[in-house]
C-alpha cells in the first residue's frame, strides 16, 4: 500500500515546528505504524536527511513509551490502543496521514514526535505509593483481600502511564491517570492508612504541574489503551472531598 505522511518536525523544545510531507510506497499492511516510521527513517537516512525522532520501547503495548497523535487523535482512530499496536491495515491505500506528538499543556516537545511527560512522575512522587520499607512487610496472606477487591485494584493498577488520557482531554487534565493510582491504593487495605494524605498530595501535585481540570467529558476513557474507567475519577473526587471533610488538608 502507499501512503502520504505529514509529519511534525521540530528541532528542539525552543524551535517552532512545521509539517513535512513524505511519500511511502509498497508498504506491507501487516506492519505496525511504528515499523512504517522505521521504514521512513531508513529512507531518510539513505537520502542524507535527518530521521524523525519518536519514542518507543516495548512495542507490545505495555511500557507506555510510544504515543503519537495520528490524524488528530492520540494513537489514531482505534479506541483503546497504543500507537505501537496500530497496524497499517487499519489505514486505506492512498491515505494521507497526519502525524504529531502527543499534545498537552504539561507536555513539552523535545524533538519532532518526542515529548517530555515527566510531570506524570512528579505526581507519583507526591503520593503514588504505600510507605513501606524493604524487609518490614508482614506475611502476604496475613491480610486477606477479597477476589473482587483485588480485581478492581488490578483494573486501576493496569495504567501504563502513557499520557493518552491527558492528550485526549480538551483541558489536558491528568485526572484519569492520577485517579487510577489513588483508586488502586484506596481499594486495598494496605493503602488505607495513607488514604487522605495521598489523595490530597497527588491532586495538589496535579494542579501544580499545570494539568487542567476535569470537566467530565469522558473522552479519556474512550481512548485509554488499558480501558481505565472514569469511575476512578469519581472515586478520586470522593476521596478528596472525604479528606477535606475529615480536615486532612
Amino acid at each position, binding site marked *: 500500500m502507499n501512503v502520504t505522511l505529514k509529519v511534525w518536525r521540530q528541532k528542539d523544545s525552543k524551535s517552532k515546528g512545521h509539517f513535512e510531507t513524505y511519500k511511502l510506497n509498497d508498504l506491507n499492511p501487516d506492519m505496525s505504524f511504528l515499523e512504517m516510521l522505521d521504514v521512513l527513517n531508513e529512507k531518510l537516512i539513505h537520502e542524507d536527511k535527518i530521521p524523525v525522532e519518536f519514542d518507543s520501547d516495548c512495542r507490545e503495548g505495555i*511500557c507506555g513509551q510510544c504515543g503519537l497523535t495520528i490524524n488528530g487523535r492520540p494513537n489514531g482512530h482505534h479506541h483503546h490502543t497504543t500507537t505501537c499496536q496500530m497496524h497499517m491495515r487499519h489505514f486505506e491505500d492512498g491515505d494521507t496521514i497526519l502525524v504529531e506528538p502527543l499534545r498537552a499543556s504539561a507536555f513539552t516537545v*523535545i524533538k519532532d514526535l518526542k515529548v517530555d511527560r515527566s510531570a506524570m512522575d512528579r505526581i*507519583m512522587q*507526591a503520593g503514588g505509593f504505600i510507605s513501606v520499607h524493604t524487609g518490614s512487610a508482614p506475611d*502476604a496472606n496475613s491480610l486477606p483481600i477479597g477476589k473482587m477487591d*483485588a480485581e478492581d485494584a488490578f483494573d486501576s493498577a493496569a495504567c501504563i502511564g502513557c499520557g493518552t488520557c491527558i492528550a485526549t482531554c480538551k483541558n489536558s487534565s491528568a485526572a484519569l491517570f492520577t485517579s487510577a493510582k489513588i483508586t488502586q491504593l484506596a481499594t486495598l487495605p494496605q493503602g488505607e492508612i495513607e488514604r487522605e494524605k495521598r489523595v490530597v498530595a497527588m491532586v495538589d501535585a496535579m494542579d501544580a504541574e499545570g494539568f487542567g481540570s476535569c470537566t467530565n467529558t469522558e473522552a479519556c476513557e474512550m481512548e485509554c489503551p488499558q480501558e481505565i474507567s472514569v469511575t476512578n475519577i469519581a472515586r478520586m473526587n470522593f476521596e478528596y472531598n472525604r479528606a477535606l471533610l475529615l480536615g486532612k488538608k
Partner: protein
Amino acid sequence: MLNAKIPEGPLEKKWKNYQEHCKLVNPANKKKLDVIVIGTGLSGAPAAATLGELGYNVKVFFFQDTARRAHSVAAQGGINASKNYQNDGDNVFRHFYDTLKGGDFRSREANTYRLAEISANVIDQAVAQGVPFAREYGGVLANRSFGGVQVKRTFYAQGQTGQQMLLGAYSVLMRQIGLGHVKSYNRHEMLELVVIDGKARGIIARNLITGEIERHSAHAVILASGGYGKIYYLSTLAIGSNASAAWKAHRKGAFMAGVSWVQFHPTCLPQSGDYQSKLTLMSEALRNDGRIWVPKLKGDDRFPNDIPEEERDYYLERKYPAFGNLAPRDIASRSAKEQIDAGKGVGPNKNAVYLDFRDAIKEYGAEEIGDRYGNLFRMYEKITGMSPYKQPMMISPAAHFTMGGLWVDYELMTTIPGLYAIGEANFSDHGANRLGANSLLQASVDGYFIVPVTIGNYLSNDIRTGKIPTDTPEFDKAEEDAVERLKKFVSINGTKSAEYYHKQLGKIMFQHVGVSRSKKGIAKGIELIKELREDFWQNLKVPGGIYEVNSELEKAGRVADFLELAELMAHDAYDRDESCGAHFREEYQTEDGEALRNDEKYMYVSAWEYTGYGKVPKLHKEELTFEVVKPSVRSYK
C-alpha cells in the same frame, strides 16, 4: 581459578552466616557514601529505592523517559516463590532443586539456594506495596504451576505480573526520589565505567536530550541494565534493550560468564516481513490446550483447516509422548526450528509452526476456551488480523532471556571491586537454562534483599574516603574515550544504517549461535561477525550530531557493542564441547536427539576476560561443586 566467596556452613545457613558476619555501615556514615545504579527494572528500582531508604546517596540512570518503562514491565506469566500456600509439598529445597536442575547443573548451589530462600519475602514486600496479585474467593493469594514444575508456586497478576511487580518497585522508588534520597537521571545512557586504582568509581553518561557528556562519581556502581537478547535483533526484548553497560564494564576488566546461554521462547509471533522490529511473546499457557503441528508434506500450501488429520505431524506429541505440547521451552524451540529448517515451516514466510485450538474448542466449547485465553486471542488478532478461533495460530521461537552476563560472586560483585551486577545483567542463579517465572524473582531478590546488604560489606572500607573527585585523569580518559567513539560514529558517513547492521548480526547469530549450534557453524559465524564488524566501521551512517537528540547515534553505540559481544558469545559456545540447558551443540546429543552433558569435563562456569578489541578472550573457570545435590540427567521422553 575464580573464587566465588561462598560463605561457610551448610547450605541453609550460608546466607544467615553471611549476614551475621558481614561488615555494616552505620547510619551516620551512609550519608557520606555515593552509589550509582544503572537501570530501573525489577532489579535496579528496588536496589536504588532500598539503598536510598537505608541512607546512602543514590543516583539512578536509565534510558527511557520514566523509570516505570524498564522492560521488566513486559513480563507476563508470573513470579515464583516457595511459600507453600497451596500445601502441595513445596518448600525452599524443592524450589532450589528445581532451579538447579532446570539450569542443568551449571549454577552455584549457594546462590540458587539463596534465591529460593528469599523468594517468600519478595511476595510479602510486593503485597505490602499494593501489588494486586490474583486472589481466591476467600481472600488469600492464588497460585498456578508454571514452566513444567509439579507444584503451584507461581504468583501472578493476570497476564501483567511484570508490570505490576515493576510498578510496585517504581512506587517505592518514586517515594525515595520525592524524599530526596535518590536522584533520578531519565533519558541518560551510561557510556563508560570509570575505574580508579582498580575500583569502580563512577561513570560517564550521555544526556539523551542535550547530548551533553556528564561525569558522575560514586563509591560503588551497580549495573542493573537487563538482558541482551536483543543481539538477535528479533527478540521479545524492547527496542532499547542492550548490552552496552555490561560490555563497557567487561572492557574495563569485569569477566562475563555463560554468555552464549540464551533461552529461546517457543511461542512468539513469527516474523511477517523484513521491516519487523520485534517478536511479541504469546504466553506459554497457550500450550496447555493448543496442539503444535506442521504439515507432513514439505511446502504444503493448503489452508491449515483443509489439511486432513493424517497429513499433520504433531511432532512434539510424537517425539515426547510424556510431555507432548508442554515439553520444556528449549526442546519446543529446537523442535520447531528443526521443522522449519526441514522445509515444513508454515505461513507466508515459511518460518512458523501451527498452534491449533480446534480440538480444544471441540472438547470444551469456544466460550470456555475464550475464558481461558480470550485476552491472548484478542492480542493475536490485533497484531496479525487472524482469529485463533477460526484457524490455528502461527508461532515461532524467539530470543527471550539471557542466562549469561557479568560474572558475579556470592555478593553479586563482579571481578572489578565495587562494581556489582544484578538482575538479568549478571550470570548467577539460572545456570544454563532458566526456569519460567524465576527471573522476576531473581531480579527482585538481588535488588531488594541481596545487594543492599552485601554492598555495606564493601562500603564499610570507604567511610573515610570522602567524595570521589571527577577531575581526575581516569575521568578525563574515560570521557575522552566516550567522546572519541561518538565522533567516530558520526564521521564515518557511509551508506548503511545501524539498524541494517543490527539486522544482519541478528541473522548471523540466529543461524550460527542460536537455538542449536555446531562447531563448524560457530566458526563460520565468527568469520561473518568479524566481516560485518569491519564493514560497520567502514560504512556506517549516523546522520545528525552528538550534542542533540539523536536516536541513530544511540543505536550505533548499541550495535557496535553487540558486534563485539557476538564474537564473545560465539567463542563461549565454541569452547564448550557439550550440550547443557539452552546450549545445544549438535555434535553432543543422544540417539534420540537429547542434550548430552559432559560433567566430567565441563562442570564449570566459563568466565571470560577481555583481552583487547577483536582478540581471543581469555577463559577463567569457576569449578562447580555440588555438595548437597547430585547432578542428574533430565529426560522428557
